[in-house]
């Protein structure tokens, strides 16, 4: 039962990633593209958690945690660069 649920969930996340990719390519505003990238990072974390549950292996959470931190920092750096033209002033 859990295996089927995990596969359905992986399919949902993959579809969500495709929708994000469409918004990332289509735009139109720059804010849309940043939101799409941020959401893709969160969906990638969800996919890693699902893979960890499927493989019965809890080592994947270090990867998920690192991705969460790097995704947040990169989003903030991108926004800061667009707002001020510089990241570290």
């Amino acid at each position, binding site marked *: *039962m*859990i295996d089927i*649920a*995990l596969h*359905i*969930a*992986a399919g*949902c*996340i993959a*579809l*969500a*990633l495709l*929708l*994000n990719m*469409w*918004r990332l390519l289509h735009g139109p*505003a*720059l*804010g*849309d593209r*940043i*939101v*799409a990238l*941020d*959401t893709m990072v*969160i*969906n990638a*974390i*969800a996919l890693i*958690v*699902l893979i*960890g*549950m499927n493989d*019965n292996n*809890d080592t994947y*959470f*270090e990867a*998920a*945690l690192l991705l*969460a*931190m790097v995704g*947040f920092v990169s*989003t*903030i750096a991108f*926004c*800061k660069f*667009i*707002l001020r033209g510089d990241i570290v002033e």
Partner: protein
Amino acid sequence: MSIIADITIVVLVLLGAGFALIGSWGLVRLPSTMERLHGPTKATTLGLGALLLASIIYFQARLGVWTVHELLISLFLFITAPISANMIAKVHLHRLRTGRETDGIAGPPPRPSEEGDWASFEAPRQGTPASTADN
């Protein structure tokens, strides 16, 4: 594995994946950029929270260990999601003001009051700890 844990995990996994899908669907369907911010920043974060909860219960029921990594990830995400949404909204407002961006059919968001403006447009005030107004 007991049947109750089994059912709880299945419900939480499907709920989490459904919320993630709804967030991305909102990102595609909503008409303007400021509205498109809502779907991913709320629904997707909530969906990931449900998935991480399912993972905690799964490893307790399957391996008999309590893992708290997931709590760390969800805490971190729940703290950072509003901050990044705020930064993206600021970027969009600044680009609207400088005329490099036009908003969708919903138009730009209304100003806060008659003479006031969005706080992100105000000059930094003197005297606050992080103020850069003096130099």
